[in-house]
Each structure stands twice: as C-alpha cells, then as structure tokens.
C-alpha cells in the first residue's frame, strides 16, 4: 500500500527526518512512535503533501496495478488518491456545524459542477442526498447524531477527535493516517477508541498508519511498529519485538 524510501526532511538547520524507510501492507494497522519532537508528525505532513520532502520516495499503491509517487503532489491531489488524515492539534472547521464538517469531507468526490449546485439540478440533488445520508451515517457511528447542528468547536475534546476521524472517513480513504487520536482521552474513552478504530478498519476496508503516545494503545492495536528518535528510525518490528528492543527501551520507554 505505502512504501517510503530514504525519506529526508530538513527545515533550515533542523533535520526533522533523516532517512526514514517503511513499508505498509494493505489491510495492516501500523504504529509510529517516538519521543516528542522525534519527527513523527513531520512524516505525516510529508506523506500528505503539506511539505515536499528534501529527498526520498513515497510510493503509494492503492491497487495491485496502480502506483503513485506522492512526493511532489499537493495535499488535495493526495487526498483524492485516497490518503486522508487527522491532525494532532485538532483542525476542524470550528465555526461550522458538526454535520457540515463531515459533509465537506465528501466534497472531493462530487461530480456535479458548481452551476448544477446553484440551480439544484436533479443529478446534483441525488448526489447531495447521498452525501447527507453518508454524513449522517458517519455521525451515528461516532455517536454524534444528536449534536449535528452544534458548532464543531463547542464539542468536548474527545468528541472533536472523533469528528475529525468521521470527516476523514467521508473522503473515502484507502489509507488513513491518525496523528495521536487518543491524546487527551481518559482510559475509558481510549478503550472505546481502540474498538472504534478496529471497527472502521473492517467496515471501510482501511489500511491505518497511526502515531500514538499511549503505549497500551499502540501495543494492543498495531501489527507492526516503527520507532523514531531525533529523525532517525531506531527500530521496527511487531509489538513484542519492540518491547524487548534495548535501544527503544533506552531512548523511549524507559523515559516515558
């Protein structure tokens, strides 16, 4: 699904990512961990086109015979190819309603042109109805159907994180990137989130790449884990391997 080769990202003097390699198979849940400032979010930003990498390849293969080089594409193009994300520092459309937030996630798949929407032509109305139904379904999935008309920024923190996931799901992604989805959640909410991630993976046929600080979440959910420190990949493997890896324990688990 995704193959990252020798990825480098430099900001002036700061080297946020220094030769990252990774391979994510279709249908996997893969974790990315590392101390604060290790460069995890930067890797997400590069995959989704927010930054163009200083060097390296990002090969995305949503199907057996379909391959795209993501490096150099803009974020909107990448989202259209089926790579969508959430943000560590929640970026909802704060002044808009909960429903509108999810509805906007559908926009990239719209076929009607703008004039059909203004004149509300039949073929657009069919499309719009489908988009609203899908949005409402997603809201129901995250348990926000009753808050659909509330302002997104008025939701509690945990709900905002879920809303971001619903918004991302509305884009019909194949690869979903989650940046610290459990941040700020209590243990109860965290357990629900793990369940929720498993559920959506099944239902929407997703491949998931996630950054997380809660070790229990990562260890519980990932099939494969990459560990980053100061922009360098220091370990990779399945959860049990990572837990036993000395460098990881030293650089990260011991401190955290």
């Amino acid at each position: 699904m995704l193959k990252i080769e020798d990825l480098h990202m430099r900001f002036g003097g700061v080297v946020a990512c220094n030769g990252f390699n990774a391979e994510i198979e279709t249908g996997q849940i893969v974790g990315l961990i590392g101390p604060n400032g290790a460069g995890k979010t930067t890797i997400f930003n590069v995959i989704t086109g927010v930054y163009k990498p200083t060097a390296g390849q990002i090969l995305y293969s949503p199907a057996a015979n379909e391959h795209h080089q993501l490096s150099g594409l803009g974020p909107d193009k990448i989202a259209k190819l089926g790579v969508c994300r959430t943000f560590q520092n929640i970026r909802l459309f704060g002044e808009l309603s909960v429903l509108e937030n999810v509805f906007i996630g559908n926009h990239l798949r719209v076929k009607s042109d703008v004039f059909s929407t203004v004149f509300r032509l039949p073929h657009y109305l069919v499309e719009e109805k489908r988009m609203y139904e899908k949005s409402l379904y997603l809201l129901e999935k995250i348990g926000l159907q009753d808050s659909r008309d509330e302002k997104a920024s008025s939701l509690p923190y945990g709900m905002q994180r879920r809303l971001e996931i619903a918004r991302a799901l509305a884009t019909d992604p194949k690869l979903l990137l989650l940046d610290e989805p459990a941040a700020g959640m209590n243990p109860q909410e965290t357990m629900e989130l793990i369940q929720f991630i498993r559920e959506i993976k099944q239902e929407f046929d997703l491949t998931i790449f996630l950054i997380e600080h809660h070790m229990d979440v990562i260890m519980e959910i990932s099939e494969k884990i990459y560990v980053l420190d100061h922009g360098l990949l220091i370990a990779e493997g399945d959860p049990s391997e990572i837990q036993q890896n000395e460098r990881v324990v030293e650089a990260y688990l011991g401190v955290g």
Partner: protein
Amino acid sequence: MNEKSKTPVTLIILALTIVGLYLANRFLDAYQIRIINLSGIYVTLGLSMNLINGMTGMFSLGHAGFMAIGAYTVGILTMPVTMKEMNFFMQPIVPFLADVEWGFLPSLFAAGLISVLLGVLIGAPVLRLTDDYLAIATLGFAEIIRVVFTNTQSLTNGALGLKGIPNYTNTWWSWGVALITIWFISFLMKGTYGKAFLAIREDEVAARAMGISLFKHKVMSFAFGCFFAGVAGGLMAGLLGTIDPNMFRITLTFNILLIVVLGGLGKIGGTVVSAVIVTVMMEVLRFLDEAIDLGFVRLKGIPGMRMVVFSIILILVVIVREKGLLQRTKGRELTYAKN
C-alpha cells in the same frame, strides 16, 4: 423541516419587495427613488464582497476596480452612436466600438463577464497570497485599472470620462439584480461548493487535507464576486449617466467593506440589511457635509464629517464585536490564532 418552512417566507418577502417597489415608484420623488436604486446596487456589491472576503476568507480590496470595468463596459456598449461622437472629441473611439449600441441586459451581462475575465486574469496569480498581501495586491489592481482607464483615451475617453450614458437603471433593475444575487449566493452557499469555500475560510490546511483544491475554489469564489461587482458597476453607470476614472477610488471599496463588516462577515441577511442602512445613512448624514436650511437657521456643514462618522463606526464595530468574540473563546484553545 427547516427547508420546507422557509419557502413560504421567501415568497412572502419576494412579494412584499415587489409591492414595495411598485408603491415606491408611484409615490416617492426622484431623490428618494435614487436612494432605493443605490440601496439595491449596494446590496449586490456587499454580497459580492462578502462572498470573497467573508465566506471564502480571502481579503480582496479590488472592488472599485471590478466596478469600474463593469461601469465602463455598460457605458460604452449602451451609449448611442451620436453620443459617442460627442464624448470622444479628443480622440475618436476605437472603430470596433464606434457603431455598437446594445440593450441594457446584454450590456450588463457583458459587464459581469468582462469583469470576471480581467479579474481572474490578474487576480488568479495573487490569490495564493495571505491576507494582507492579497489585500495590498488587489488594491494595487484596482489602482492600475483606474490608471489604465485614465490613459486609454480612445477606449474610455480618459480622464474626461463618459457623459450621457442612457439612464436604464430603475428600481426593477437594481433590485432585480439584488434579488438574483441574494438567490444565487444563498444557493451557492447551500451546496457543496459553498461549503468548501467555508472550509477554506475556516482552515486552509485542513481543507486541502480533505481534498479541496485551494486554487480552484478561490478562483471560483473570486470570479463570482467579480461578476456581481461588474454588474453592479454597470447598474451604477446606468443610474448616474456620467462616469469617470476618479469615481472608482478606494473610498468606494471602503464603503462596501463597511457594509460587509457591519452586516457580518459571511452573513447574507446581515449584508442586505446593512447595505440598505448604510446607503440611507450616507444620504441622511449628508447634512453633516453640506449646509442645510432649517427655515429659521442655516447650519453650515463641514465637508468630510460624514466619512469621519463612518470611519469611527467601522472601528468601533470591529473592536466591540471582537471583544465579545475574544471573551467567548477565552476558555478554549486559541482557534483564532492560526496563521
């Protein structure tokens, strides 16, 4: 549920507007009719600027320029051939325009389209600039358009301007266009493209991550804004009958900005109301600028006082409103500090 209950209200408002305009035309004098016309034109202008600035979150100050394009288009296209010869005595008008004399409707359309064409042509490259740079660049465009119109003697008659443009604009035209603009922008914002504009306003990074092309949507919003501004400029030409490049200074853009800020960034109904109020106030407060005779005393007006009042209102509204907003968002994360 909301949807269904809204339709009759819309129809009632529409009917009231038509009856109101009919009665106004029967019973009001020319000066009052003129204010009604201006209100309608300013509704269109306010909405078109609000689409760009309030709903899509760009900051364009080019409205005077787009209006100038529309006004000159209508002026040149509708003016009778003999009138053209009288106007262009310094230098004859370019041959391909010398013999045209179009009706008002096609001229208004042309005004909108040419405004879109030029607006997008010069606007598209700078739309990716952030707030303040975009503001100054679009302001620059408006100035360039004014300078060009002052210098293209055989096309625009230069600094002399155009006189004797047929007075086609009446309340049906000005408010007809205003209603069409209200309808168009309401339905645009109801649909998925309008929602995408709002998303861009709220958070460009998140909007792009959701697959929304910033360039495409910004150009789209800008183009619609240019269209209606151009048409409104055309109506203005048909109302005043006389135009010259100096009418289209930044003061004009300032008036529209005032309407948009008072009515609320992103608010359609608010813009309509504030357009009418500002237009009427501009006239009512004219006494501040000009001498008035109250029968027993003559008060001397002070030129400029009117705009002083309006500037103070603008600053106060911005500050008071923002204070409220900051108060409300204090407990939360800084959603407004996203540069």
